[in-house]
């Protein structure tokens, strides 16, 4: 069962090498090798180490975070159509980020504001769904979807009131754009830490997927586990959104594609999601940088264009 993970790891490495080599200026493999050994021209070194490497790592971390968060949300809500944003977290983050942009704040403050918005949205949904006593997964889902619609209205209102010269930056943020990422290390650290934390819980998640009562009867402390998953998925999503805006569909399609191929053992699906989600976003970002180079597309457009047909296919299958 370790073999699919090794395979995915190898593919991830290849994708990252490709992302380093391709761009507005292509760097041949020989020069790539020289730079990695600490040689090569100053221009190539700057291009690779200061520009492309952080961006590639940030794309990988963002994709991994979103895919793991999506896999967790699907188990928590026991709903295969759940994704990291289903509970309105991205809406909260977007409102935070747009407010900071409206105020003309710098990138760091935009990120901080987005993170604050995301965590506020999480607490809001959790508090509302908790309400009078117990929350069930369907109640959590319904609360989240309604709150997400509310965030959507606020975002539209803000865009309508924004002076037009500020709009492109905001729209790029909303669609998801890795070029906002300043440093990849925080996101990568959160991703690695999350996988290490969640792996020993993964068999508990397998049991939880069969329903909370069955899980409790098999020795799972359901409520603390659900809290842990929800908080973890929220922190992962908030970190991803803060790194690259709300990139769509990675969190929905990656866990599903993996489940179709590898089955539904979370001990494999969670680390595989981290690797495959990262790989997908690295490739999507490479496309976004190269299709109309030197102009760039927001990476969220590419993942959504890949994601929409996959989503429809899954929906179609789930009826049949």
């Amino acid at each position, binding site marked *: 069962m370790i073999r699919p993970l090794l395979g995915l790891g190898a593919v991830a490495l290849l994708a990252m090498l490709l992302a380093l080599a391709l761009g507005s200026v292509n760097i041949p493999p020989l020069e790539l090798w020289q730079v990695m050994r600490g040689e090569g021209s100053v221009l190539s070194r700057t291009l690779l180490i200061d520009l492309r490497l952080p961006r590639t790592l940030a794309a990988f971390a963002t994709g991994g975070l979103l895919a793991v968060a999506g896999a967790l949300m699907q188990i928590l809500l*026991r*709903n*295969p159509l759940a994704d990291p944003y289903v509970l309105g977290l991205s809406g909260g983050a977007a409102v935070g980020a747009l407010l900071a942009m409206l105020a003309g704040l710098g990138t760091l403050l935009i990120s901080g504001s987005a993170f604050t918005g995301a965590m506020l949205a999480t607490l809001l949904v959790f508090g509302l769904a908790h309400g009078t006593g117990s929350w069930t997964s369907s109640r959590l889902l319904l609360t989240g979807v309604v709150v997400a619609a509310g965030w959507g209205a606020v975002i539209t209102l803000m865009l309508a009131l924004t002076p037009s010269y500020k709009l492109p930056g905001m729209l790029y943020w909303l669609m998801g754009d890795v070029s906002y990422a300043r440093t990849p290390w925080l996101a990568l650290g959160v991703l690695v830490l999350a996988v290490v934390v969640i*792996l*020993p*819980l993964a*068999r*508990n998640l*397998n*049991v939880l*997927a*069969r*329903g909370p*009562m*069955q899980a*409790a*009867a*098999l*020795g*799972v*402390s359901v409520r603390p586990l659900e809290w842990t998953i929800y908080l973890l998925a929220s922190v992962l999503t908030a970190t991803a959104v803060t790194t690259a805006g709300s990139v769509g569909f990675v969190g929905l399609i990656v866990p599903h594609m993996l*489940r179709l191929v590898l*089955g*539904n*053992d979370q*001990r494999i699906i969670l680390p595989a999601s981290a690797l495959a989600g990262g790989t997908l976003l690295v490739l999507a970002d490479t496309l976004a940088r190269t299709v109309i180079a030197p102009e760039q597309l927001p990476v969220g457009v590419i993942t959504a264009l890949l994601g929409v047909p996959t989503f429809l296919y899954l929906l179609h299958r789930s009826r049949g």
Partner: protein
Amino acid sequence: MKTLQADQLVIDIPGRPSGQALDFAVEAGQVWGVLGPNGAGKSTLLHTLAGLRAPRSGAVRLDGQALTRLKRKRVAQQLGLVFQERQDGFPATVLETALIGRHPWLSPWQMEGADDLALAHQALQQLDVLELQDRLVSTLSGGERQRVAIATTLTQAPQTWLVDEPTNHLDLHHQVAVMNLLANQAASGRAVIMCLHDLNLAARWCSHVLLLYPDGEACWGPAADMLVPAALERLYGQRLLTVAVDGAPVFVPVR
């Protein structure tokens, strides 16, 4: 040896008077049948005995210790519950489903080993569903699913079994096979508590019976003392004819 004990237990059914507190002890080797009309609280009682629902008052004890003070994992090593209803949100095969019965016995980093796999295979074999092991549970018939659920608890190997209507969806042959399997579990030193709708299965296989009335009243004791026509007619509000066959009473509803 006492395994599971209800200590002045009142189950919590919203809007119903507390009625009589349950106070009984189930011992190893015994097979208890819980009988009662729809909505009397049979499933609620089983869930309360398993610690999945809080009682209105009183306590459930497992080997003398209050259930609420034990860790869920330790409870699951002692106590298995076969649910009446099951949800399958994500596709899973029959073998995977049986294997989750090993969950309470494995440490967080431990994978299922060869012995766990052997237990699961053995359980599926005993329930006559081994040849279905690679099928998705969602593609099985109701009776096959029921047997897979029982095989999961057999893989769990608990000291005390709580079974919510074990013969649900089963054909006559498999009803008998499952009742015999549960009786054998008791005979080998375990204890079984099950909800039943069929008086005749209770009369044939249960050593003890608990009658649960819809108003919260209850009585319990050895099966021979409890399975008397007057009590059963009051329980179901249904007149019965009784005949003796093969040393056990057979109850037939009056048309």
